[in-house]
C-alpha cells in the first residue's frame, strides 16, 4: 500500500493509505486529529476545512495522496498552549459557535478570509462563508467574529 508523507501542524507525519483514502481520514483516523469534522458527503458543509500549503481546502474532497509532500494545518495547529489564535478568541468572544461542530472548519475558513480580506465588510464575509454551513448560530455572530478576529490579526 502506498504511503503519504505530510507535514501536519509543523510536524512530519507518514501514513500508509489506500488510493481512496481521503485527507480527512488520515487526519482523523491515523493522526487522531479529530478536530477536523465531516458533516456532509457532497463537499458543501465545510466542517472539514484545513489549510494545505496555506490554502483552505475541503479535506473530505482531497485524496490523502494528492496532499503528499504538502504542509497541512488543522484546527489543532492554529494555536499552542494556553493562548488562543486571535480568530479562535474572536469566535469565543462573539459567541460565534454553539454546538461547536462546524467551528473548526469555520475558523480555518475565517483565518483565510482575514488573510485575503483584512478589512472585509459584512457582505464580503457572508459571501466568503459560502462553503461553510452552520445550523446553530444563524451566522450573525460568526460574521462578527470574523470581523473581530480579522482586526486582531491585523494588529497582531
Amino acid at each position, binding site marked *: 500500500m502506498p504511503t503519504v508523507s505530510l507535514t501536519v501542524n509543523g510536524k512530519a507525519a507518514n501514513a500508509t493509505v489506500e488510493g481512496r483514502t481521503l485527507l480527512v481520514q488520515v487526519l482523523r483516523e491515523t493522526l487522531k486529529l479529530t*478536530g477536523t469534522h465531516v*458533516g456532509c458527503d457532497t463537499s*458543501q458543509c465545510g466542517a472539514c476545512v484545513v489549510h494545505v500549503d496555506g490554502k483552505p481546502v475541503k479535506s473530505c474532497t482531497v485524496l490523502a495522496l494528492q496532499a503528499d509532500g504538502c504542509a497541512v494545518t488543522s484546527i489543532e495547529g492554529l494555536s499552542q498552549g494556553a493562548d488562543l489564535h486571535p480568530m479562535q478568541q474572536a469566535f469565543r468572544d462573539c*459567541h460565534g*459557535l454553539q*454546538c461547536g461542530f462546524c467551528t473548526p472548519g469555520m475558523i480555518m475558513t475565517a483565518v483565510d478570509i482575514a488573510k485575503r480580506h483584512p478589512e472585509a465588510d459584512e457582505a464580503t*464575509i457572508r459571501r466568503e*462563508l459560502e462553503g461553510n*454551513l452552520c445550523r446553530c448560530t*444563524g451566522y450573525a455572530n460568526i460574521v462578527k467574529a470574523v470581523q473581530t478576529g480579522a482586526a486582531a490579526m491585523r494588529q497582531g
Partner: protein
Amino acid sequence: MNHVANPTGIGASVKRVEDLRFVRGKGRYTDDIRLHGETHAYIIRSPHAHAKIAKIDTSRAAAAAGVVMVITAADLAKLGGLPCGWLIHSKDGSPMKEPKHPVLAEGKVRHVGDSVAVVVAETLAAARDAAELIEVDYEPLPAVIDMSKAAAGPALHEASPNNQCFDWHIGDEAAVKDAFAKAAHVTKLELINNRLAPNAIEPRAYIADFIQATGETTLYTSNQNPHVIRLLAGAFVFQMPEHKLRVIAPDVGGGFGSKIYHYAEEAIVIWAAGQIGRPVRWTSDRSEAFISDAQGRDHKTVVELALDKDGKFIGLRADTLANVGAYLSTFASVVPTILHATLLAGNYTTPAIYCNVKAIFTNTVPVDAYRGAGRPEATYLLERVIDLAAIETKRDPAELRRINFIAPSQFPYQTPVALQYDTGNYGRTLDMALAAAKYKDFPTRRAEAKARGKLRGIGIANYIEACGIAPSAVAGALGGRAGGYESGAIRVNPTGSVTVMTGSHSHGQGHETTFAQIVSDKLGIPFDQVDVVHGDTARTPFGMGTYGSRSIAVGGSALIKAMDKIIAKGKQIAAHLLEVSDQDVVFENGAFTVAGTDRKKTIGEVAFQAYVPHNFPHDKLEPGLEEQAFYDPKNFTFPAGTYICEVEIDPDTGVTKVVDFTAADDFGRIINPMIVEGQVQGGLAQGIGQALLEHCIYGADGQLLTGSFMDYAMPRADDLPMFKISTTDTPTPCTHNPLGVKGCGEAGAIGSPVALINAVVNALSEFGVKHIDMPATPQAVWRAIQTAKSKT
C-alpha cells in the same frame, strides 16, 4: 434570590466555558471516540419506498474480506420494536394505531432508507464493499406519498388498513359552529407546513461496547437525552436490566429535536457489540441522514377564522392532516396534537376553537419533533389566517392583532384548548417590535424600493409557545408515557468547589456556562469553581434530557431545588459550628451568618467541615454536602413575542431577500443574555430557512428528491441578514418556577416563518396575491406573480 452585582451570575453575558475546547478542535463528539478493537457497521437501506422483501441472500457478503458479521431481521427476532412515547386516542376513543417499528425491516420496507441488513466489518470500507454483495429481492408495491390519497392504500401496516394512525380532536365543535353562524366575516385559508430535514451538522453516530466479564454495555450516542435512550433501549427493545446499559452522550453537534429519538442504528450497534464482544461503531453520512433522520413538520391544513363586526375573533376551526411517515417515531404522535392544537388560541381571546388532526402513515421517513415541534405549525396557520383576515377586512394587521390580545389583567388565562397561560404582556412585545422595526415609516421604504424596481413587504407575527415540557400529571393525562420532570444534583466538594450533575443535556445551548451561572449566583461560589456534568447515565441522576425549551425552566429549577437542600443542610452545619440554632442562621453572599451579627462560616468552610466531621452530632447531622432534587413543573411556561420581517422581492426573478428582521421576545428572566440572543438568532435562521429555502420533496414513487445539500437548500451566511433582537426590559417572569424563566430555544423557529410569509404576501399585494406556500422560492414567487398577472 440575591442579586448582588455578580459578573458571572444570573443576568451576565458570561463567555462560554465549552468554547475553550470547541475552538481548539478539542471537542469530543461520538465519532471522535476510538475504542480498541472496534468494528464498523454499514447499513443496507431500501431503495424502494414500499416493497415486500421476498428474499435476502447474505452469504457472499458474510464470506467477504474483513467481514465480522452480517445481520438481518431474522437475527433480531427477540428484540422489541422501537417504542413510541405518547399514546393518542382518536375522537371515537380508540387508541392510535401503533404498528411495530422493527429495528430491521421484517418482510417489508416502508420508506426509502428503511434499514434492511447490516454488515459489520474490520473497516468501514470493507463493510461497504461487502454490502454490495448482499442480494435483496424486492417486490415493489405502490407508494403512499400524498396524505390526502392515503386511504386508497395500499396499507403500509396491517393494523391500519386506511393508513390513518389516529383521528384526534380538541375543543368545542358546537360552540365553534355557533360562532361561525353569527360571524360578520369568515376568512378561510388552505396551507401546507413544508417538510423539513433537521440537518444538525454533526451526523448521528453511535458506538456500543460490550464487556463480557461484567455483562455491561456502554453506548456512546449523539443524542439529546441519554437516560431516555437507556430506558427505551433497555426496557423496550432489549429487555435488558438498566444497570447493565450505560449511555453516554458526549459533545453533540446540534440536535434540534432530531437526536431525541431512539433510532434503529442504536439498537443495531448494541446488539452487534453484544454478539461479537467487540465495539461496533456507526456514523451516518449526510445522504443517509436525509433518509433516516426523523424529519419535521409536514402538515396540510384548512383553517377558518370567524370575526365579529369589530374585528374580534369569535371562532377558529382547523382541520389538519399530519404526516407521521412510515413508522411512529418516539414522539411523533404528540407533535401534531398536544404540541400543536393546544396552541391555537395564540395570544388572543378567541373564545371558541376546534381542531381536528388526522395523522397519516405514508411511505416516507418518519416525522417527529423538529425545533418548535407543533408550535411553529400552530403559529403559522393562526398568524397567516389573521393576516389574511386583516387584508379582507381592511384592517391594519398590527391593530387587528392588538384588539384581540389577552390583556395583562386576564392572567392566569384559561384558553379553550386546554392550556392555562400564567402570565404575559403581548402588547409590550408588539410595541417594542413595531418601534424597533420602524413600522410607521414602512410606506416610505416601500416607495423607495419601488423606485429601485423592488417590491418591499412587511409582515408581523405574534407567537406563544408552551415550553418547559412538561408537568408529569398533565403529560400523563394527555397520553404521555413518561414524566416531564428533570433532575439536578449538587456536590459541594471538600475544598468548596461545586460539581453539578444534571439530567439536562447540552448540544449547543451552553449549559456548562448557564447552569454554572445559576449555581455561582445562588451559592456565592466563584463561577470557575463550578463544573457541570451532563450526558452520562453513570454520572448524572435520571433525567429527561433537553428538548422543548425545557432545560433552564425544568433542569435549572431542579438545581435550585437541590441548592435549597444544600443551603438547609449548610445551615445545620453552620449552626453546629457557630453553636447557635438553625433558625438563627441566614445564607447570603456565599456565607452562613448568624442573623444580626458578623459571625459567619463561608460555604467553603462549611463544606470542609462537612467532609471532616470530627465533632458532628451524628444522630442529628450527616457528614457530606451533596444533594439531589427532581423538579416537576407545575405548568408549562409560555414564552411569547412579536416578530416583524421586511423583505424585498425582485419581480424579474422572484428572489426574496430578507432585508430586516426584528424580534421582541418575552422569555421571563434571562440567565445569560449573550446565549439567549444566540439561541434566537439560530432559531430565526431555521425559521427563515423553512420559509425561503428548505423543503423535503418526495416524488410520487417515494424517492426523496432533495436528498443532499445539492438539492436541499440550507441557509447560508449570505441568505440571512443581521437581526434586531430585543427581550422585554420589564419581564413578566414565569410565575411558577423558582427562576422565573420561560425558555428561549425554539422561539425563533416558531415565530419567524409566518412573519416572513406575511411579508412576502404583503410585498405582492399589488398583484392581489393572497397566499404563498413555504418555501417562497424564487420560482414560487415568480410564478405567483405571473399567475396573479394573468388573472387581471
